[in-house]
Each structure stands twice: as structure tokens, then as C-alpha cells.
């Protein structure tokens, strides 16, 4: 069921997910489109998430935004519910009560293990989004594994002292007993500054012609988990199952790439180790069980017909 409406307030609104925002020019959503979006959300009972550019909006926009309950996704150093860091440095000066998002390429990520380890004890929640996950190689996986092991050490110590910072890559799977995917096009849709609707911001960024009618989405079932042949049997519950990345890499929204799956399973297996490590010292999340598995890509163990 649809639950959220994401509204990109400007073409240059901050990206908080896999796809870069190629738009650099300021171009605000029309006030009428903004009002219409809010009205739509009210009638459909959708919670709105506004996504902001890095400049102060005109007062008339702020007034309209203020007419409805919402969450704010903002670029650092603005204040909001979700704050997107420009880089590792700005992460250190984040407001403590917000969800912090760090978009980062794999090379920089692998080189930043210690910096992230140092930040973890200071955050409530950090979402790391790897922007080039579709290019993961076997060698990258090795490096990713050691990065996650290092972060596990920090997280274990924190959890045992009663401080429980969340890191999407590791602690989400540890807490989940069922899938928690992005569900773009099923639970959330996006209103872009051109006044049209999209599955998510990435579809707008990559091709503005990919708009949809939110009341009549063709083949919407293919966005649902029950129509994803690999994912519906998968227990990497924390995986975003990004339908935009799926389409980019395999041409089908319901089929993930090999790279996506092995990265998510590397995280899943690391989460399993973290859970075990904490449980060696304390009782923790007894309802969660992460089984030992011998594959990283569910495609390799699919049912063959």
C-alpha cells in the first residue's frame, strides 16, 4: 500500500540514494504543483518527505510546506530529519538527533574504515549509500569484508556498553525479521519539480520521460516483492532491493544484478557475525536468527526448471 510521497522541491534537491542528481541548476517546483502534491497526499493518506536544495526556499514555499505534517530530507548543514553529508568530514559535525546519510564511492569507502569507525559511537543512525555498487568486483568484496569486520568491532563494543548506534549496512539486518526494502512505486512515489510523478527520484534524474500516473501504474505488480523471483526467497532483509539499480543493470525492475546481491549478502553475513559476537557476551535479540549460508548470490542457488 502506498504510504509516502517524496517531493523534490527543486531540480538541485540533494540526492540521498544510489543515483547522482545530475541537475545543478536551481529550478523550484511550481507552487501550484506543490499544492497539488500536498492535496494528493492528504487525500491518499500519504506521509510527505520533502527533499531540499542547498539554498533557503522563498517564504511562500515554506508557508505551503507548513500546511502539512512531513519529514525533511536536507543537505548538510541544514537542519532536518534526514541530513545528507557532503563528505566524511561533514559527518563529524552532524546534528545528533538526525539520520545521517553518507553517499560514497567504493574506493573512498574502503579507504575510510578508521574514519567511519571513529564516527560510529557519535551517531544515532548512519546510512551509508555506496554509489557505485554495480561495479563491485571480487577484489572489492574482499576489501568490503574487511571494512565491515572492522566496523563490527566498534559496534560490538558500543552495543555491549548499552549505546546502540545504527549503521544500515550491519545493524539493520541484525534487527529485522522480515524484508525491509525500499519499495519505490509500491509504498512510495515521488513528485518531481516538473509536476510529474516517478517511482523514485532516480527515475526522474536518469530519464524525465519515465514519469507515471500514480493511479494507474502499468505492471506495478513487478515492483512488488512477490513478483521478484530471486528476492522473494532471499533473507538479506536489509537490502534496499533498488528497482532503479535493477533496471539499470538487468533491464528488469524485479531482477537484481550479481553485484547488488553479493554486496548485500556480504553485509548479511557480517551482520550474522556481529550478532554472534554480541551474543557471546549478552542476551540480545533472541527472536532473530540469521542462518549460515554458503552462497553470496541467490541466483547461484535458484530453483532450476
Amino acid at each position, binding site marked *: 500500500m502506498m504510504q509516502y510521497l517524496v517531493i523534490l522541491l527543486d531540480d538541485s534537491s540533494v540526492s540521498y540514494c544510489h543515483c547522482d542528481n545530475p541537475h545543478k541548476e536551481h529550478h523550484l517546483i511550481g507552487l501550484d504543483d506543490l499544492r497539488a502534491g500536498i492535496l494528493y497526499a492528504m487525500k491518499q493518506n500519504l506521509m510527505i518527505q520533502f527533499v531540499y536544495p542547498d539554498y533557503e526556499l522563498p517564504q511562500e514555499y515554506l508557508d505551503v510546506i507548513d500546511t502539512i505534517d512531513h519529514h525533511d530530507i536536507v543537505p548538510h548543514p541544514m537542519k532536518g530529519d534526514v541530513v545528507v553529508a557532503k563528505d566524511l568530514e561533514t559527518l563529524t559535525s552532524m546534528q545528533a538527533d538526525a539520520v545521517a546519510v553518507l553517499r560514497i564511492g567504493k574506493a573512498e569507502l574502503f579507504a575510510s574504515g578508521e574514519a567511519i569507525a571513529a564516527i560510529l559511537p557519535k551517531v544515532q543512525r548512519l546510512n551509508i549509500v555506496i554509489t557505485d555498487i554495480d561495479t563491485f568486483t571480487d577484489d572489492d568484496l574482499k576489501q568490503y569484508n574487511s571494512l565491515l569486520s572492522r566496523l563490527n568491532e566498534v559496534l560490538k563494543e558500543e552495543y555491549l556498553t548499552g549505546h546502540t548506534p545504527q549503521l544500515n549496512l550491519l545493524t539493520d539486518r541484525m534487527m529485522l525479521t522480515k524484508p525491509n526494502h525500499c519499495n519505490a512505486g509500491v509504498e512510495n512515489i515521488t513528485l518531481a519539480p516538473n509536476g510529474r510523478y516517478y517511482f523514485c527520484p532516480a527515475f526522474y534524474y536518469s530519464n524525465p520521460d519515465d514519469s507515471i500516473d500514480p493511479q494507474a501504474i*502499468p*505492471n506495478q505488480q*513487478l515492483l512488488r516483492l512477490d*513478483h*521478484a*523471483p*530471486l528476492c522473494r526467497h532471499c533473507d538479506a532483509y536489509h537490502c534496499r532491493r533498488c528497482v532503479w539499480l535493477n533496471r539499470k*543493470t*538487468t*533491464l*528488469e*525492475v*524485479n*531482477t*537484481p*544484478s*550479481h*553485484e547488488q546481491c553479493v554486496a548485500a549478502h556480504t553485509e548479511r553475513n557480517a551482520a550474522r557475525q556481529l550478532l554472534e559476537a554480541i551474543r557471546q557476551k549478552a542476551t540480545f535479540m533472541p527472536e532473530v536468527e540469521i542462518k549460515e549460508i554458503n552462497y553470496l548470490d541467490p*541466483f547461484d542457488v*535458484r530453483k532450476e*526448471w
Partner: protein
Amino acid sequence: MDLYKIKDNEPAWQSGMSKNITFIVTKDCQLACKYCYLVGKNVKERMSWETAKTFVDYVLEHEDEFREESVVWDFIGGEPFLEIELIDKICDYLKLRMFELNHHWFNSYRFSFSTNGINYHTSEVQSFIKKNREHISIGITIDGTEKKHDLNRVWKQPTADANGLTQPSERGSYKDVVKNIPLWLSQFPDAGTKVTISSADIPYIKESVLHLYSLGIHQVNINVVFEDVWQEGDDARFEEQLMELADAIIDGGWYQDYACSFFSEHIGKSLDPERDNQNWCGAGRMLSVDAAGNLYPCTRFAQYSLRSKKALIIGNIKDGINENLLRPFLTLDRITQSPQKCLDCEVASGCAWCQGENYDAAQTNTIYERSTAICLMHKARVRANNYYWNKLYRKLELEGRREEFEKNERDVKPEIC
């Protein structure tokens, strides 16, 4: 011949265990059949030897990625025998390289052709057949009686249009094909022919199948087109034709030694969502290459086969296959792509689909939306098929031959395309 053995449909050679690899050697053909799904046929795109060789090298040097026990090297067009010289060279090279590499396919390969039969008698084609006699299967397409055949299978205009595309003429091709049938059957007595039924062909089904039998063709593989071409009332007319055909086959005793793929004991049952979830179509488990060196999951995804979608290219002969693009094909199952009516359908078994047509007809760019344009036609076929088996079994019963029949009956899996 065992008089009491009922002729059942022949399974495809090593079906299931073999890799089907198709060379689209040319997009040209002497004919311009009116139902031809190849919308972009043209005289320009012919495969070069360099392209063919690079492709062969790619496939044979990646033995690890092609683990199927055997291989069918398929040559299609347009009309493949227009390129017999190139084909001969490719086949020689294939044999040489499979031998040199000690490839596991060396003793388990076949060259396969679907031809319009027009050039069958030429010395080039004949010497190729002699050279590769033990490793060839050839299907000649003949649609039935002269009238039926010439309804669709007409010669193309002598000159292509401004875009290089071929256009149909009024001249039928029946006589040019049928003269080669005796030679073909003398060389391949078990060969079958493929017949494709569109809306206008329905009234000719019975006479066509009987005509093909009378020419000595024992196996008639016949199916309705997957495209949405059907008119109101076609299903009733189709059912009636098939029942007349059933009567003729049973009353005339043809069933003993001749087969028509319309009638099968495996069709018309409900399907279990768990057990019977397999994809019908072999796209993705096959591989095709065209003149430009692009690779496709099946020829139906090449641009010349598509009406409304872009070609779905999964790689090229230089860089190989992009495995990520194959994943949707290899994970596709019946349940995920079918609408609810097909999941609830009580006669679903044998109701086929073509992944390429599904893709071409889909509302979005997906292979996961099953086209059900043949729904009413399949249901009509099921009714006539039930009639056929009920009538045949009763006859065998009365003649005291039913038990023997059931004992000898072969279990034939439905053929994937």
C-alpha cells in the same frame, strides 16, 4: 513399422540437455510471407566470415560457460540457404575447432536449418548435406495445400523499397517448394514441417495437414501465432476445424504413423503453482548472433523481429555476454509473468507463450508480462483435443487395442522453442 504403435509427437533432439546457438546469417529471403514475424527483413544485413569466426571462437573458448551436454548450431535467416557458402565455411571451422580444442561438444553437435525449401536441390546445398549427413536436421516449411500455402507464402517483389525492406508480391511459392519435398524426404524420412496458423488460415487447417501427410511428411508441427491477430468467432471456427481434422485422422487411420502436434495428451490440465512453474520458452538458455556481432537471448529479440520495442542485446562477440542481462531470463517462471486468469485456469497446460512476443506486446519494457492473445484459441484447441482422445480411445477400446496402446505410449515432454 509397428501397426499398433500410435505415432506420438517427436521430441526435439536432445531437448533439455542441449544448447541452441543460432547464427542469423542473413536477413534476406526470396519470400515475403504475409504472417512473417520478421518485420525488418532486408537485403543488406548479411553476416561476414570475420563475425562468424569471432563468435565461434568466443563460444568454443569459453567452454566453462557453456556446460550443456550437446549443442545445436542453428542457422536461420531470412532464408539461411541463401548463404550456403558462408554456412559451409562456418561448419567446417566449427568441426575443426571443436576437434582441436577437444571440446565436449565435438561428438555431440548438430547443424539445424529451417528453410523455405526453394534452394534445397541446388548443388551447393546438396553437397553440404552430403558432407554433414550424420549431423544435420532440416525442416522445410510448407503450409499445406497449394491454396493455403500461397495465401501467405508469396515471393517478394524483385526490388526492395527505399529503406531496403522487402515487400510481398502476388506470386505464391508452393510449386517451387513442393518439387523439393521428395528429395528432402528421401534424405530425412523422419523430418517434420512447421505450420503456423493465423486468422485467415483457419478454414484450411484440416485439408492442409492431410495434404502434408499425403506428401509423406509424418510429423506436422503446427501452432497458432502468438500475436494478437484473432477475430471474433475464430475460436469456434478453429475448434470446428480441429474436430474435423480429428475425425479425418482417426477415421482414416493416420494416427498410426503420422503425428500432428495439435493433439497431445499433455495439454488442457490445470497446473500446480509450485510444481509446474517452469518457463515455457527457452529464451536466455539459447544464444543468437547477428551480422553486426550482437548477441541475443533468442532471435526474437533482434530488431528485425520486433514491432514496437528496441532490440534486447545481451552482449557482443568482442566483449561476450553480460551475465546480468541474462538473469531475468534465467529466473523467469510461469507464476511471475502470468496474469491471475492463467494461474486459475483449468486448462493451462500446453498453453504456450513466446518471451519475445511477450516483450514486444508488453505495456512496459519487460519480459515479465505474459501476452494472452491466444487464450481463446488454446481453449478451443483443448476442447477439440479432448474430443480427439475420447474418440480415439473409444475406437481402440472397441478394437481391443487400448491396453497395447497405453503400454507403448511414449512420454513426450512439450517442446520448447
